[in-house]
């Protein structure tokens, strides 16, 4: 038994003293190899009597696994040291810039439309659309703007050549013709919003030949001016994220609504800057009213039974006010510096629950 003990001490010492993987391999072969010393001792077990064999056998087995374990431990400590030595020579300047990944942006017009749709969607209004090139009837006449109406002159209409039975076509001057198309195609009740491109033949600091509007139409048997007020006050406060935003309605005139109103929101003008909220000033933001019974009749909707409201808002104007964009014309210049500055991350998808 003392042989075993002596061998253990000798081998353990040799493992401790090993200088590298080669030394370890040599020790392994000399101890555990086919002709190794532990192997040799184990071969001698057959000649022993049963009791001794059992005793020595157990001791040798224990020694065998102990040495194997010690070899493994030493081996991995060599591997660690080797790895550490290698890594010590490997380093980068971690302040170097990462590989370029282009950052996309959502245009503020799209973002604003998405916001407006998120708010009115919550009120049960669905999105409807119609063509940009319209005929006179849909753009004007059906909306109670007869050919000689003074309001028609104020629209600065773009004209296109004759088409079919039409003397000329027009680029829609507002999104209101979609009201007509929707009502002609369906049956009340109607609850819709229409975001879209609109066109006026005008270009200066505050006018662009193309801009965006969002139209709304709610028609049923009961909707009255109180609802119109509620709907728009709720909208303005949600959109501008000012809970107590002052909103005022004052009488106005649109051929397609009766009664008609213009809506102002509270603002503060100071040192050439404009802020939305409680203040001593007002800012006009949209026109609205109760759908003129003539418009309903023009769309074959029984005006004795149905009524409702409509309004139109300029998208760019909303975006300019909310996001402090100073110049309307810059929206269409596609200047990447502008788009990066005023644009939105693709992941900021507006919703009422997720935030606008």
């Amino acid at each position, binding site marked *: 038994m003392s042989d075993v003990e002596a061998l253990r001490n000798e081998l353990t010492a040799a493992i401790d003293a090993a200088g590298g993987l080669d030394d370890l391999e040599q020790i392994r072969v000399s101890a555990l190899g086919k002709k190794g010393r532990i192997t040799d001792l184990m071969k001698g077990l057959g000649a022993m009597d049963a009791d001794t064999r059992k005793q020595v056998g157990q001791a040798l087995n224990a020694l065998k696994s102990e040495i194997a374990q010690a070899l493994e431990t030493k081996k991995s400590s060599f591997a660690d040291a080797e790895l550490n030595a290698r890594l010590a020579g490997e380093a980068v300047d971690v302040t170097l810039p990462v590989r370029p990944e282009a950052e996309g942006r959502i245009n503020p017009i799209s973002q604003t439309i998405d916001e407006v749709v998120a708010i009115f969607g919550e009120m049960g209004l669905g999105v409807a659309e119609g063509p940009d090139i319209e005929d006179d009837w849909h753009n004007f006449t059906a909306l109670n703007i007869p050919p000689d109406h003074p309001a028609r002159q104020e629209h600065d209409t773009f004209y296109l050549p004759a088409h079919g039975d039409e003397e000329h076509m027009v*680029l829609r001057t507002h999104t209101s013709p979609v009201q007509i198309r929707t009502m002609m195609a369906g049956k009340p009740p109607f609850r819709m919003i229409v975001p879209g491109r609109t066109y006026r033949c005008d270009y200066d600091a505050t006018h662009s030949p193309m801009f965006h509007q969002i139209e709304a139409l709610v028609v049923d048997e009961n909707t009255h001016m109180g609802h119109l007020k509620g709907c728009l006050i709720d909208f303005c406060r949600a959109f501008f994220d000012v809970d107590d935003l002052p909103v005022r*309605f004052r009488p106005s005139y649109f051929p397609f609504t009766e009664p008609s109103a213009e809506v102002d929101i509270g603002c503060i003008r100071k040192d050439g800057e404009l802020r939305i909220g409680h203040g001593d000033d007002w800012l006009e933001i949209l026109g609205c009213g109760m759908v003129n019974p003539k418009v309903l009749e023009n769309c074959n909707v029984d005006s004795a039974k149905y009524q409702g409201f409509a309004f139109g808002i300029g998208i760019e104007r909303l975006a300019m006010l909310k996001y402090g964009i100073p110049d309307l014309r810059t929206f269409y210049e596609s200047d990447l510096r502008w788009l990066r500055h005023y644009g939105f991350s693709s992941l900021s*998808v507006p919703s009422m629950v997720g935030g606008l």
Partner: protein
Amino acid sequence: MKFTFGWLKEHLDTTASLDEVALRLTMIGLEIDKVHDRAKDLAGFVVARVIVAKKHPDADKLTVCQVDTGKETVEVVCGAPNARQGMVGVFAASGSYIPGTGITLKPTEIRGVVSNGMLLSEKEVNLSDDHDGIIELDDDAPLGTPAADAMGLSDPVIEIEITPNRGDCLGVYGVARDLAAAGVGTLRPLNREPVKGTFESPVTVTLDFGKDTESACPYFVGRLVRGVKNSESPKWLKEKLTAIGLRPISALVDITNLMTMDYGRPLHVFDAAKVKGGLSVRLSKKGEKILALDGKEYELDDAMTVISDDNGAQALGGVIGGDASGCTQDTVDVFLESAYFDPVRTAMTGRKLNVISDARFRFERGVDPAFLIDGMEIATRLVMDLCGGEASELVVSGAEPKWQRDVTLRPERIETLGGVTMTKKDIVKILSSLGFDCKNGGKSLSVAVPSWRLDIVGEACLVEEVVRIHGYDNIPTVSLKRDTSLPSPALNSSQRRRVTARRLLAVRGMVEAVTYSFLSVKEASLFGGGAEALKLMNPISADLDVMRPSLLPNLMAAAGRNAARGTANARLFEIGPYFWGAAPDEQGMAAAGIRVGASGGRHWAEQPRPVDAFDAKADALAVLAELGIPVEKLDIAADAPAWYHPGYSGVMRLGPKMVLGHFGVIHPGVLQAMNVKGPIAGFEIFFNALPEPKEKKSKARPHLDLPQFQAVERDFAFVVDSGVTAAQLLAAAKSADKKLIAGVSLFDAFEGGDLGDGKKSLAINVVLQPLDKTLTDAEIDAVSDKVVANVSKATGGVLRG
């Protein structure tokens, strides 16, 4: 519409302040545009007289004035050429702030003489740019009183916006009437007393219209006043007109302007001596000419209303008077015209001739058809008061057009439409104060509309009148309740696809642009557009004169502008309409994007490379995949339209006909024509061509069957003719065993070298996925042989040794 506060109060008896009146005007629909307090910059300055003026001892151009300010006499050094003894001017004492120069006055010594104040020019009080001399006031202006009073400027000017329906408020009287109804004071009665005519007018009037054109001018009231003296108007009249921006001309002309502004009743005055024969009101003759009072000659067509004498047209009815018979300082006998002209014809005449006048503005919105005679009487009195003379009897032709009508109002409509509960009594009170006459007709009211409210045509109009005066502020607010407890999607599937595509492209690093729907014909024609039917007849500029056939050209132009500003590698996309015809179904929605220049900027770890067709293809396929299009089933062919590079572009089809989009490098010729630097890789996807997303009964995904056995991969390299496409080869390989082959991918492609001309090598990796047992070598070899055989059969390809 402009007037002064004092002018308003001539018609409205009120104690309300200017601020109160202004707010009320806005809140009854007569929106305040501006309130201009002209006296603001005159505050503190007083009337003063130069009692002694002497030349400055040491300066040629300066005068030393002893100025009587009403309180004291002070010495002032003045440089104005008109400073002289006896004149009355506007004095600013030492210590006062001069608004026009921003300077606060201090006593100063000017070349040895102390100056204790200043005599002001108009520029110094922001009245005009006039700085040539100091203001001169009337000799009798009381010294020491506010200069604003002496100058007639203490009355603030109110400017309001009148909506097109409110022709009745295009006169101060009408505005006062609306305010009175709104409870801001009481309306003062008009003096409608007839002026007694003492003789028959020598000028006669006939209405010469055909049966179907008599509406052009159905009613004409005239009167001659003889022996007038037409000189300068009195101060009060000149001040009124000046305050609202009109230039006083002569008493007779000023009276017509006053009638227009005060009552919305345009009048015209003819010099009777210059009228030959009687006046005839008729339609113009084609080619007829008239020299108008604005000094311009107009050529008329055959549909304009003229007032003519034997010499021809003397005035364009409702639009502008003629020069030949106009009144001058020498006019002795004046013939006044108060007529009713058809709004539509007046508007058309004005528009065709491009004449904008205060008269046209009112006639086209509709003047009060029952105010012709009243207007004439008021004007006659003014003429006789200011110019003397003797009035003739009235000359009346035609008859008052019928304006009387009743509109039914169910009082409950104030609540059910207007949203505010009001008693019938209050409703009637408001309507009556606006001049409506309400009669009970059973449950509803029968409301007679006054002559001046041509805009009131139905019950909704009356609801507006009542609610407007009652105040929109008083309508209780009711939030809109949706029909369902939870909101349903606001977007339909195709709208949602556009939102998805937009977000996806931004995720891929592209920046969303919104460009005009129009562009130049030259650019449109590069992209298959420019059709006559889509050309704007009145474009804003020649660069924007046709509807766009594609979204690409405007994006490319934007890239060009960005390159000029220093951003060369633009990545832009847009989602919007494109047009191929003028009908509603001849426009579609597209997503288009471009990548310009290089794949990125210079970087220490990665070399940028020029953008290529596969950048654009990746964008296009990513969008289509995200929209649920089975991109693996797309047929991609090299027949893209002419604006793409013929060799570096493709068309994506689903089925033989349905073109979902294009991608590729933009044709260098197109770049050159648009003067944009390339390369540009672009794509277009047409939403209208995409198959509708399938409505699935269940949102549940199919069962996921994960294979239990190890997949096996094999690589093959084939030599094929150059014309063979990767798609053909991949399809052939895949079809070798549709069950076992889970995927085929192409990992190498090259041409030339020792392959010889017209040949290329394509290497593919085939993944075999056994489903029920491990494959034996023999089975793997069998599939491999089949792959080689299939490829060889379909493409003529040979396995490379």
